[in-house]
């Protein structure tokens, strides 16, 4: 079976690099082709990388609290750029502060993210979900 490709990065003015390093390491170990665009990445950076590498999924990390602003319109922008139905995941500390998770989850679902993860999610959980969603579980 062909390796699936995941674009990985940290969105917005966010510089939290540690989780990104770990995700890269773990996704690679799990057999994915990882395109890591690193920290301080714009929606455009994600989308361009996904187009260039014909990616199957985009993993957006947002740690620093501005996730809500930074992720807005990402699904629409993907569609516009021709990335039809690409898997969009988001995780980290995606909003400012300790908020009701159900509300946060819904907000990001409504934005068009396929999976939305709370703080401290283990990498394995995301990987298992993605295997399911890509039909390779």
């Amino acid at each position: 079976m062909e390796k699936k490709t995941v674009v990985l990065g940290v969105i917005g003015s966010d510089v939290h690099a540690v989780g990104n390093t770990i995700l890269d390491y773990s996704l690679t170990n799990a057999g994915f082709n990882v395109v890591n665009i690193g920290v301080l990445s714009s929606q455009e950076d994600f989308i361009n990388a996904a187009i260039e590498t014909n990616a199957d999924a985009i993993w957006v990390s947002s740690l620093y609290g501005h996730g809500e602003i930074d992720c807005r319109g990402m699904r629409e922008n993907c569609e516009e750029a021709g990335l039809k139905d690409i898997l969009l995941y988001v995780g980290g500390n995606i909003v400012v502060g300790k908020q009701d998770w159900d509300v946060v989850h819904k907000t990001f679902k409504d934005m068009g993210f396929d999976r939305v993860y709370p703080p401290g999610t283990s990498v394995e959980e995301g990987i298992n979900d993605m295997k399911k969603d890509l039909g390779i579980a």
Partner: protein
Amino acid sequence: MELKNKRWTEEEFFKVREEVLNSWPTGKDVDLQEAVDYLKKVPEEKNFAIKLKKAKEAKVTLAQPRAGVALIPDHIELLNFLDKEGGADFLPSTIDSYTRQNRYEECEVGIEESEKAGRSLLNGFPAVNHGVKGCREVYESVNLPVQARHGTPDSRLLAEIIHAGGWTSNEGGGISYNVPYAKSVSIEKSLRDWQYCDRLVGFYEEQGITINREPFGPLTGTLVPPSMSNAIGIIEALLAAEQGVKNITVGYGQCGNLVQDVAAVRALEEQTEEYLEHYGYKDMVITTVFHQWMGGFPKDEAKAFGVISLGSIAAGLAGATKVIVKTPHEAVGIPTKEANAAGIRATKMALSMLGGQRMPDAKAIADEKAIIKAETKCILDKVLELGMGDLAIGTVKAFEQGVIDVPFAPSRYNAGKILPARDNVGCVRYLMTGNIPFSKDLLDFNRQRLEERGRYEGREVGFAMTVDDIFAVGKGTLIGRPEGK
């Protein structure tokens, strides 16, 4: 203008200054002479630098939270809450991440949206957008000294605005606010931009106004070996002193092993003073700041209190002048003001119950201190050699060659060749040594310590240890052992 570790001339400074103030509309409101007059009226107890000096003399450890929200009234309320309900000794104003990247337009959006939403959508206080007037409103509405805490590679406009706004301390430095906080800002540029910030403080010093500067010790907050952060802190202190800064607080982020933490703070303070003295900087006031655990926190609040308290005690035992406080919400998100105040109260209780006790002198501390100092000296010697005596030039070259190398830093100007891991008692050591200019003895020492752990855990010394160590505290232990160990 070429980068050199040399005090800027008036001409150089004022030329750049014009440009800086023109980079965003609020810049125009900074009037240096008026600011001097304003700052002359800051009472001693609201001057950051003076309060730190007194704390050092009194041998006490004072507590400071992090905190900042988008809107002025909310920010003031927050700060006063942390004073009254938390018992903070110093106030912060944590600056939002757009400001840190000089993206002031996005701050405007964030401010507007926050007004609409009735809650802060920014992760800090956008001081540049609020301008001198906004900063003064904050300063005048609180009873304690205020400091800007951020992570801004180019903080020149921010520095102009906050100091003119009555804030008597600025955190950061050309290395410590670049490498952990930016991807593509060259070391050369950030060193130069921070020379500006330091020169500004130096200028105020010449007018008789003392302002504190604080290099950001913890860097990426993630398993940074003490000698690496100490070397960077000392470099930033020396660079600041050259620009005329007099009151400097060097910092250190808790690694977790008590002996190493105490030794590191003492080594940092002593070596900073030694180097400043050696280069002839006079009348310096050097204090220290200890950051409670800067890596991933446990989600559970009770456990977070355990981490917070251990950090407070380490700070107290080390004799740090100041401790930066985490909160029980750390793992999840920016804390509510209540959670923030709770962190301060736990901290101050632990400190005041410790009652000024220091770690008693012990051989273990002396030995670890000697190691840290020797490692630090190796790095600094090489930096100076590379710069042929010029510290600024040497620093740029040191980054190019991986002589200074910060683990997990996002910056592409950082070699990223070293990797840390804990030894068998939890001290952070160099696992992959990259291009670190250590003597053979020191390299062997690091290796031996890690191998001791490898033997105990029955596994190879390697990156798996680092990964486990990154998750360890969040999961409730210091050392990331394999299961069953």
